[in-house]
């Protein structure tokens, strides 16, 4: 438990330095790229959220984009209402076109910023809790979890597209007002906005790391290895799995809210099949075992995508495909695996040297350390 804690802190610190200093430095702390980078951070955050459920608890959520998208829609609803204040009934334009008489009740509370911010976390968490209880009480695991989460996401996406009167349909919710955060009008191209996103990402990671490094996280890692065995120690496995699943959903919800802010619209493609699989791939490239590594994977792949698409135009998809295959084949634990293996190797060498030194000192006077596994 506390073994990995120090290493976590170092990793987290380095990551924070990268996000807070190096990335803005790369663009001289200004310019439109900050907006792109903020977008990458939001995507890195959702990759980290997936790593929490997948890497820690072994729950492969192929519908991670569902809660991400829900978060984005929640933020967009608030901003749309603010943009529609001057329209008849304060109703979004797309509702007026489809002859909606009055603002529907489930839109009403999104006038409030506080409600919106709370809902952006709690609604995804609520969805995940319900789905988690539904699945994990039935001891659904592995590929079945993947299929269920994927199917649910596709169903919700279809529903959102078809209920155009209330959701904006295929176009999503567009034409948003800028966010006014307690008097601070957010400009998404400013350094301050970038730091807002970075702060949320680091906070989300801190929450996740806290969970992973607590005893609850230890139990989750045990569940990943052998859920059956954990039950016989008296842990309610379904509840633990739901905990990881819901925390992951909450972080994804925040990431979604930020994403809608960055792009200034919400679209049903945010909860689509391709982004969901992309999230899995980002986490795999970075390393699913560590949230920080997964976030780095999300940021790195998207940065690379931005660059490759610039250099190689439409052939970048081909290159990305090849890179993914190569990572899966040669780096099964992602980039994190490289670091971890190197670390373990060094650690083993060090222990070996210490042990040898000890042996020499003790010589025949004492029995070798390795033989001491005896019952008194």
């Amino acid at each position: 438990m506390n073994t990995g804690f120090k290493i976590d802190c170092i990793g987290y610190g380095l990551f924070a330095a990268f996000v807070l200093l190096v990335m803005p430095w790369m663009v001289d702390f200004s310019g439109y790229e900050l907006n792109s980078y903020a977008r990458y951070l939001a995507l890195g955050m959702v990759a980290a959220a997936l790593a929490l459920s997948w890497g820690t608890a072994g729950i492969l959520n192929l519908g991670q984009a569902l809660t991400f998208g829900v978060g984005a829609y929640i933020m967009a609803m608030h901003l749309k209402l603010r943009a529609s204040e001057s329209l008849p009934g304060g109703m979004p334009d797309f509702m007026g076109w489809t002859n909606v008489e009055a603002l529907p009740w489930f839109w009403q509370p999104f006038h409030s910023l506080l409600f919106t911010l709370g809902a952006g976390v709690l609604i995804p968490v609520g969805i995940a809790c319900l789905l988690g209880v539904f699945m994990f009480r039935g001891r659904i695991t592995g590929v079945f979890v993947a299929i269920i989460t994927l199917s649910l996401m596709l169903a919700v996406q279809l529903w959102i597209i078809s209920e155009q009167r209330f959701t904006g349909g295929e176009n999503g919710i567009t034409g948003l007002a800028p966010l006014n955060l307690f008097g601070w009008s957010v400009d998404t191209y400013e350094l301050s906005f970038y730091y807002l996103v970075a702060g949320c990402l680091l906070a989300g990671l801190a929450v996740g790391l806290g969970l992973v490094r607590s005893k609850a996280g230890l139990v989750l890692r045990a569940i990943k290895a052998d859920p059956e065995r954990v039950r016989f120690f008296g842990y309610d496995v379904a509840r633990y799995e739901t905990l990881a699943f819901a925390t992951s959903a909450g972080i994804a919800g925040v990431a979604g809210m930020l994403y809608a802010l960055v792009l200034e619209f919400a679209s049903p493609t945010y909860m689509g099949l391709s982004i969901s699989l992309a999230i899995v791939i980002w986490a795999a490239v970075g390393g699913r075992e560590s949230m920080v590594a997964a976030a780095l994977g999300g940021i790195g792949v998207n940065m690379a995508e931005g660059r490759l698409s610039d250099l190689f135009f439409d052939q970048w998809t081909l290159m990305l495909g090849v890179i993914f295959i190569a990572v899966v084949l040669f780096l099964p634990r992602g980039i994190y695996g490289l670091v971890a293996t190197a670390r373990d190797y060094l650690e083993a060498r060090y222990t070996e040297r210490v042990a040898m030194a000890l042996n020499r000192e003790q010589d025949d006077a004492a029995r070798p350390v390795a033989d001491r596994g005896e019952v008194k």
Partner: protein
Amino acid sequence: MKRRDLLKGVAFGGVAGAVSLSGFPGIWTGRGTVLAASGDIPVGVLFSQTGAVAVVESTLHDACMMAIEEINDNGGINGRMITPYVEDPASDPATFADRANRLVRRDNVISVFGSYTSASRQAVLPVVEGQNNLYWYPTLYEGRECSRNVMYGGAVPNQQQQDFVPWLKENFGGRFYLLGNDYVYPREENNVCRMILDEIGGEVVNEEYVPMGHDSFSSIVSRIRRDEPDVIFCTLVGDSDVAFQREYRSAGLDPDRMPVASLTRSEVEVAAIGGDAAAGHFSSAPYFMGHESAENERFVEAYLRKYGDDQVTHFVNEAAYFQVYQFKAAVEALNGEELTPTAIRDAAVGLRFQAPQGEVEIDANLHTHLWPKIAQWQSDGQAEVVVESDERMAPEPYWAYEGQVCTANGLENA
């Protein structure tokens, strides 16, 4: 992880690292392709080359690039070359926004030509409006938008339907079956269609939407068989349109008694449907490949020569083509004044250009006056124009909304 894997991994990571570190950090921000020489005119070209929408959008890209090349080959605009900055938004709205951002904010283009779907246009809007740039959008769309930063080159509902719906009622009867993909455009077109039908005494027997990309139409065809409408008023796009028309054919329905009247079907879809299955049905659009005019002959000939005989021109890539010439005319009209997106926009209003479909004109509301046509598809995959408007039709993006007018000052409520 085994030792051998580790070594492989290190090698792999090392190469990736070496690539990414060279020129750090500039490599993350600079542009790969050639920068515009001073004096050149930078424009963005933003059509998907990959992803689901690439089927249509790649042809818009081709037409747009051809126009740019033609202009440059003929000495550019007032001697200045157009430098196209090309991006591939991969059919994804979020990527559209990101790439538009790059074009407008990094490459400092003074106009962007791009996109096919409404969703992608709306994704780009915050970017071009935020920077007061100019977006040339060639596609027919649902109207009721009045941005001062978008040049709308395609038809809006009144331009496609005002002549078409009464003509259909006259020739086939007034019982319409409305069928479309589930998104903004079909719903709005059907809304307009209902209004026209109300006015002229027709009726809607059914109105139905299927998800984008949906390709099994058996149930719908059996419902059509049940309802026996006079006209199937169709706003399906892409794969759905193809699958539907083939299903219609194999179900043995008769185009003479129950034709499909489409607002979205162009030569692209017909090529995929197959001429036999499409023959006898109707489309309404301002342009068809088979339209007879000297300008069109030149356009089609040049296009096929450049991109191959199996390609087609259609009402969206025609607009993608002529919009570049409208841009050229606007820049010429500025006559050496400073080139800014707003100046180009203001200079473009009222300009006329002899497009392949006929002489088009840009309205003060930034939409385009077009020449509506009704055509019947033939088994060779071409459309034969059966009705041709004798005057340019004005674009009224808020036609269906009483009291709302799109003017040079933006949306006005009367």
